[in-house]
């Protein structure tokens, strides 16, 4: 049937005869007529033919010349016709839309919402997933190095955090690389002195780093490998362009000056060009040699601690003549050779270790970040919104086309070609779609900026314009596609218009197949709304679950205090003295309940360590052990319950006996069925003396919310150790933070720096995926529901208007108002029920992809799906109630008299 319909649409488009056919016909006519004329004058036939040809000249050449001229003419004529038709269509479309401004506005806004959402999402995805870092040299050969290692449970661990020693293993061992560079992006390094001191992003990069890029300094020079030498490098810095502009006013004289970066004075040797951020998504204030920055942070530990400190990321560019597989194999061999020097590692583990050159963008690599998943989901959701908007607009067009049935039939009868008609309809929808696209860009401009900052805050957007060529091209493309789709609905309708039927009939009788198409579109909208609303429900509940999760400590009232000495030298006993004074000062503050020290920070910093138990072969197979070094009253301050034994006290700090507290999970894994308290555990190496387990603490979730199988061991911290302070506020920690910072800063010597943060704030990025999902799905789901409800209302109201006569007859025959209401209501509810059923099935189908993003709730949660179904039915009921009520008030006399 559909085929016949399309053929109907095109059936009056006759084929134009080809240029050659016309010319041949013309020339043949001439030759024949001339020959006959000559014969009539008494020539013999052969002579007449010869004479005719002689007079004509070269027939082939003439034909070719004529063909060329005609073709040019035809093309020109077509262009002119096309243009005049287009102008006419545009005028016609403009007139039509001016006549129905409400319709036009509704369509433009609906499309604007859909297109705007997609334009915004495309901008985000383009930045995160599609665009390689600026200036990257030969991006096709470049990559980020990932290591794959077998974990205890037969799977593998993939990561791109690499120790300095591993970096040198790969650098010196791999022959397939043109260049390899390591870097560490420190987002919060204190730079500058005095009032100008602030935290800024500093990239610690190896001397080879700049050779990864095709880039020249704006001023001065980059640093070289000779300045990135063990152990502490040369204190030279390359400034980021924007930092140079804001702090030095773009003065070239900045080169040669020195500035404090972290604890050391660095000499500025150059300025990176505008837009260069290295491997960071955000602005970078300065680039310094890896060895220099590493030494500032960790002393010699960063290079002489073997493979323990995995703080680097490594990028490389393979030699162009080698395949990626060859490069991966070469890297793997270098990795495995290095592993043979690692202590206590079995050969089969080494054998199954792999290294690979994966995409440079983390979010396209084997371990995509959270923002990649967020972006993908947002893209999916916005695409669904666009689909709903398109379906709705198509429906509006259909309703309008029905009203214009007679007009169209009249135009067809007057000889307007179907093709022209189709073009007119398409022009109209294209004009609307493009206006919708413009509106969408407008919305993206205002909404998009906010969305980017709120949803993906860690990406620096200042370097990315809200609109660029790619976004504009993308928007134009989806606008045109939408225009085409929405225009095809009424065109489809026009294709099926039977002239006589439309002219004969009044506007009254509805046409069944068309009503079915409109109903189908409504059902699709309802179903998509159900999918989005289910997502909203699931994410809202996930967020609630995530917020309510018991971390094993009372994070809501905790404030963490970080200190940064920035190279200020203290007297031999200065460090413990400073720590003691900070602890005392904090404890004395009003509003402070308790204070302790810790090395680890929730959702931010933790450490793994090897454990050994005398008489046991290896604990390696049990998984990773996490270590924290903590001060006295640690468990009391954090609110982590001690289940057995006791916590760490002031006396454990520097006492002769080595003690440790373990988590329940660790106790159960290492000493199953036995009492952990009193056991001996060796921390760090087999050669260490025994530490006695003095207590078992409740499990904590420290690295992530799902981190419920973490095996944790706590050791007492001495005042000599540097760590952070945990402060428990009696009331709102937000109110405590600033006064606390001011008080403690007074105790810091010289340029040293205190930073105070709420632990709950650190938890924000952890909760963000759910908050984001909940917000976006709720926003878009509500939008979709609204659009679908308006669409349903429109269709039912229209159908009621069409059936006034029928209703009148029914009522004249004795139907009661309630019957009429039931009749109309039933129509809306049927659509809604179909939508709910289809939508629920679709939600279940896509649910398994969302499962990993939900927290504490199944994607098939019956309650949520049922709630969504009820909401949709209720909205559909309300949307049909108004027309139903109107139908019930039909005056049978008036209805029957009319028409």
């Amino acid at each position: 049937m559909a085929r016949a319909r399309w053929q109907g649409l095109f059936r009056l488009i006759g084929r134009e005869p080809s240029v050659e056919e016309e010319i041949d016909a013309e020339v043949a006519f001439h030759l024949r007529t001339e020959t006959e004329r000559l014969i009539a004058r008494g020539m013999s036939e052969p002579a007449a033919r010869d004479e005719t040809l002689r007079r004509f000249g070269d027939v082939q050449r003439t034909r070719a010349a004529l063909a060329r001229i005609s073709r040019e003419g035809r093309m020109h004529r077509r262009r002119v016709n096309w243009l005049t038709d287009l102008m006419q269509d545009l005028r016609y479309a403009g007139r039509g839309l001016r006549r129905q401004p409400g319709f036009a506005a509704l369509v433009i806004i609906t499309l604007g919402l859909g297109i705007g959402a997609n334009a915004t999402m495309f901008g985000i995805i383009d930045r995160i997933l599609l665009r390689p870092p600026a200036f990257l040299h030969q991006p096709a050969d470049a990559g980020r190095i990932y290591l794959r290692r077998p974990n205890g449970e037969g799977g593998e661990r993939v990561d791109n955090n690499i120790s300095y020693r591993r970096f040198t293993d790969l650098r010196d061992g791999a022959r397939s690389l043109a260049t390899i560079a390591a870097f560490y992006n420190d987002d919060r390094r204190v730079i500058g002195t005095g009032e100008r001191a602030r935290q800024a992003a500093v990239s610690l990069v190896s001397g080879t780093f700049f050779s990864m890029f095709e880039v020249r300094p704006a001023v001065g020079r980059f640093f070289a490998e000779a300045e990135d030498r063990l152990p502490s490098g040369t204190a030279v810095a390359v400034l980021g362009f924007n930092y140079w502009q804001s702090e030095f006013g773009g003065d070239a004289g900045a080169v040669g000056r020195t500035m404090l970066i972290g604890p050391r004075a660095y000499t500025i040797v150059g300025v990176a060009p505008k837009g260069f951020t290295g491997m960071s998504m955000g602005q970078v204030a300065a680039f310094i040699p890896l060895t220099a920055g590493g030494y500032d942070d960790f002393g010699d530990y960063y290079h002489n601690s073997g493979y323990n400190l995995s703080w680097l990321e490594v990028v490389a560019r393979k030699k162009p003549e080698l395949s990626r597989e060859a490069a991966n194999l070469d890297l793997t061999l270098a990795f495995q050779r290095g592993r043979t020097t690692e202590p206590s590692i079995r050969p089969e583990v080494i054998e199954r270790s792999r290294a690979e050159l994966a995409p440079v963008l983390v979010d396209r690599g084997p371990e995509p970040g959270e923002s990649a998943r967020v972006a993908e989901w947002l893209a999916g959701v916005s695409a669904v919104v666009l689909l709903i908007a398109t379906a709705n607009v198509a429906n509006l067009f259909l309703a309008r086309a029905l009203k214009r049935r007679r007009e169209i039939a009249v135009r067809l009868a007057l000889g307007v070609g179907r093709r022209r008609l189709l073009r007119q309809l398409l022009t109209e929808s294209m004009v609307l779609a493009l206006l919708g696209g413009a509106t969408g860009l407008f919305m993206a401009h205002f909404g998009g900026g906010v969305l980017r900052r709120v949803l993906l805050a860690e990406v620096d957007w200042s370097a990315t314009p809200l609109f660029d060529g790619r976004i504009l091209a993308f928007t134009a493309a989806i606008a045109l596609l939408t225009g085409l789709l929405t225009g095809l609905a009424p065109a489809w309708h026009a294709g099926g218009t039977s002239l006589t039927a439309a002219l004969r009939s009044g506007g009254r009788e509805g046409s069944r197949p068309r009503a079915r198409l409109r109903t189908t579109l409504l059902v699709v909208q309802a179903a998509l709304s159900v999918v989005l609303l289910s997502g909203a429900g699931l994410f809202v509940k996930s967020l609630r679950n995530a917020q309510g999760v018991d971390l094993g400590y009372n994070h809501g009232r905790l404030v963490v205090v970080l200190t940064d000495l920035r190279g200020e030298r203290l007297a031999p006993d200065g460090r413990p003295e400073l720590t003691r004074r900070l602890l005392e000062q904090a404890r004395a503050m009003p509003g402070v309940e308790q204070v302790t020290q810790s090395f680890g920070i929730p959702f931010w910093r933790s450490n793994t360590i090897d454990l050994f138990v005398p008489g046991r072969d290896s604990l390696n197979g049990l998984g990773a052990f996490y270590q924290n070094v903590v001060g006295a009253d640690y468990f009391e301050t954090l609110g982590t319950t001690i289940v057995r034994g006791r916590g760490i006290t002031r006396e454990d700090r520097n006492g002769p006996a080595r003690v440790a507290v373990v988590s329940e999970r660790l106790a159960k894994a290492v000493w199953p069925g036995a009492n952990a308290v009193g056991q001996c555990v060796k921390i760090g190496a087999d050669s260490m003396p025994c530490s006695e387990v003095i207590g078992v603490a409740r499990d904590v979730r420290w690295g992530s919310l799902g981190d419920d199988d973490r095996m944790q061991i706590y050791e007492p911290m001495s005042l000599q150790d540097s760590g952070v302070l945990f402060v428990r506020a009696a009331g709102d920690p937000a109110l405590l933070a600033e006064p606390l910072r001011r008080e403690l800063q007074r105790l810091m010597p010289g340029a040293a720096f205190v930073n105070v943060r709420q632990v709950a704030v650190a938890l924000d990025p952890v909760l963000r995926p759910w908050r984001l999902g909940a917000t976006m799905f709720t926003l878009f789901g509500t939008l979709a529901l609204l659009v679908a409800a308006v669409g349903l209302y429109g269709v039912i109201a229209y159908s009621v208007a069409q059936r006034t006569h029928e209703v009148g007859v029914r009522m004249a025959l004795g139907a009661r108002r309630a019957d009429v209401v039931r009749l109309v209501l039933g129509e809306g509810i049927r659509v809604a029920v179909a939508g709910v059923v289809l939508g629920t099935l679709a939600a279940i189908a896509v649910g398994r992809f969302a499962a990993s993003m939900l927290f504490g709730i199944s994607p098939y949660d019956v309650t949520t799906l049922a709630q969504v179904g009820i909401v949709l039915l209720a909205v559909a009921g309300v949307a049909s109630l108004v027309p139903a009520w109107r139908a019930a008030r039909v005056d049978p006399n008036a209805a029957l008299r009319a028409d």
Partner: protein
Amino acid sequence: MPRTELDLMQGTLDVLVLKALSWGQRHGHAVAGWIRATTDDDLNIEDGALYTALHRLERRGLVSAEWGLSDNNRKAKFYELTDAGRGELRKEAHRWSRYADAVFKVLRAQGSGMGR
């Protein structure tokens, strides 16, 4: 045919063809016949060149064409002057007669004309 002659011919042909059509609709064969009869076949124009001229004029919008039936009931392509074509004929005819007058003035000139 040498090139210069062709170039000269094109402009000339156009005028001839336009003139041939100034009495109303004609097909190509009739145009050729009329020109041949009127010039006593002195110009010796190839019919193919006439058709090229007709098509060129059509392309320029100076004549319009449509298919119809000839006297002997055959399908033939009929040409007709458009308004633009009529204007062009007027303009070209004027130009040609001024040109021809000038040439004649030269050819009929008596004496060298130097000095008063």
